[in-house]
């Protein structure tokens, strides 16, 4: 940055000289009007002295121009745009010095150049994203493979039926059943593939994996199911029946498991007890767990499933031992990417590494819409460990937007990201890949 300051103020001298000559004022006369010595003005005009403050204001007044015209020139935006281009050029270091002159003399061309550069960058990004998807997207490869496998099965089976007139009835029935089964799978697979390819690269992809279908289903219901809070229970099947979001069998299976867990949790920690505890203690999972003598992991799940009128705004993330986000409840001001690739600085990942120590932290993402969040993260050991193989773990994180700072002095928030590709934190020891956001110049 320092270099740019020098350059900017340095060229202010040239502009002062130009303006003075334009106005037909002698150097000595301008010096008197600006109350500085002629030799000092001479140094300024030759870009040998920085100026600022009062001297600049007096010179601007004496020349009858806005001070900004002298400091910034006509094209500050153009200059910084051009500098960016120069910085990305393979050997642009010498030319970089000339950008101000270029911007000042050919502002329209400079503007066009910057525009085309922006267009190139945009196109490069879409090409990258598309290439990424085709070559490195295990999801896409897996889906294509599945569709082609099912097509192969159907083709083989169908041609057996056609080419073997003397086929035994039991075989014929079996192959008919297989074709029927496969055609259903094919329809599902093709539909998922189409919606996957329809989604613009870089956008959130349509709900195509069972996981995403389940996410969509939970979002529609606000992660809360009043039917399951009732003591008579037994209504999981009814909830599933009406669920349009759950298109695949796999998603229905996952939803069934999730809802059954919900019902068990609701039985152990009834809604009214949770509501009273939240009103009394706030959405603090450890405090509530201690108060209700309950398991903190279960309390996390229950908090994540409470309606907003009881718990207020709340976000939730569940990650598995590989750091993949397997469940999430969105909250405004803290963005969560799908699947793997979330910011490694999130407390939920710290918690994953220390099974017995729950964490509380104030975090804030480095984005425009971010809000500071109180994050509670708890690690859960999900199975028994055996000799030589550790027990599988996953970690839960609750995100509570901080209330207005008037209440108390807020703790300074730890800055975290969303995912490296769209993160602007330039010096981050946890970065795994460069950001596609250009660094601010």
């Amino acid at each position, binding site marked *: 940055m320092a270099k740019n300051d020098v350059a900017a103020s340095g060229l202010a001298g040239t502009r002062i000289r130009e303006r003075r000559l334009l106005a037909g004022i002698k150097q000595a006369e301008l010096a008197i009007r600006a109350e500085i010595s002629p030799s000092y003005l001479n140094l300024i005009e030759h870009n040998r002295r920085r100026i600022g403050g009062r001297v600049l204001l007096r010179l601007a007044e004496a020349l009858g121009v806005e001070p900004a015209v002298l400091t910034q020139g006509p094209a500050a935006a153009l200059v910084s745009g051009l500098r960016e281009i120069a910085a990305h050029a393979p050997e642009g270091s010498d030319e970089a010095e000339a950008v101000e002159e270029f911007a000042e003399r050919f502002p329209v061309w400079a503007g066009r150049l910057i525009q085309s550069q922006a267009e190139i960058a945009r196109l490069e990004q879409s090409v990258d994203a598309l290439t990424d998807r085709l070559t490195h997207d295990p999801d896409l490869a897996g889906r*294509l493979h599945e569709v082609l*496998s099912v097509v*192969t*099965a*159907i*083709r*083989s*089976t169908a041609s*057996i039926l056609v080419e073997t007139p003397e086929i035994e009835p039991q075989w014929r029935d079996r192959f008919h059943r297989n074709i029927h089964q*496969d055609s259903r799978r094919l329809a599902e697979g093709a539909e998922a593939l189409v919606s996957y390819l329809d989604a613009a690269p870089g956008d959130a992809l349509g709900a195509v994996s069972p996981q995403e279908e389940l996410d969509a289903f939970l979002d529609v219901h606000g992660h809360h199911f009043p039917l399951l809070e009732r003591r008579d229970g037994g209504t999981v099947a009814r909830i599933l029946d009406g669920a349009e979001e759950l298109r695949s069998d796999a998603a229905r299976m996952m939803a069934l498991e999730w809802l059954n867990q919900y019902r068990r949790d609701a039985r152990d920690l009834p809604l009214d007890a949770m509501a009273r505890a939240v009103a009394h203690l706030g959405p603090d999972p450890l405090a509530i767990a201690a108060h209700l003598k309950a398991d903190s992991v279960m309390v996390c799940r229950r908090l994540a499933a409470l309606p907003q009128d009881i718990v207020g705004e709340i976000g939730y993330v569940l990650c598995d031992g590989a750091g993949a986000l397997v469940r999430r409840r969105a909250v405004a001001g803290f963005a969560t990417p799908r699947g793997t690739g979330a910011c490694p600085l999130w407390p939920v990942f710290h918690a994953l590494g220390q099974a017995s120590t729950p964490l509380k932290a104030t975090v804030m993402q480095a984005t425009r819409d971010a809000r500071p969040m109180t994050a509670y993260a708890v690690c859960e050991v999900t199975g028994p460990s055996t000799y030589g193989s550790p027990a599988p773990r996953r970690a839960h994180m609750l995100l509570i937007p901080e209330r207005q700072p008037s209440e108390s002095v807020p703790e300074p928030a730890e800055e975290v990201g969303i995912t490296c590709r769209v993160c602007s934190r330039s010096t981050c020891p946890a970065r795994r890949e460069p950001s596609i956001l250009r660094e601010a110049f």
Partner: protein
Amino acid sequence: MAAKVLLIEDEPNIIEAIGFVLKRDGLNVRTHSNGVDAIEAVRRESPDLIILDVMLPGRSGYEILEELRDDAQIGDTPVLMLTARGQARDREMAERAGASRYMTKPFANAAVLEAVRELLGQ
């Protein structure tokens, strides 16, 4: 005695259909449906021909093929590789790993049968 074919594939309905076609042709067909212990299955069955899918649960067909080719006992078994991707890269990988023939899904039953007969020298 009928030649023995080991079909290593994870798609049950492909196993059923191809198995049916090969049996009809008088072959002795055995099947196996995961990658992890595919090599053991080959040792156990010692088939005259292996039909091997590239994408198997647990282990890729290429890896299995490479290990197979390094094995003194079963390394010479002809292998018909099945894959869902026809790109040059995959063909090259299959050849490098030592596939005797290579077939892209979706294939015709007749083509599989023809390839099997050819590899068995019939």
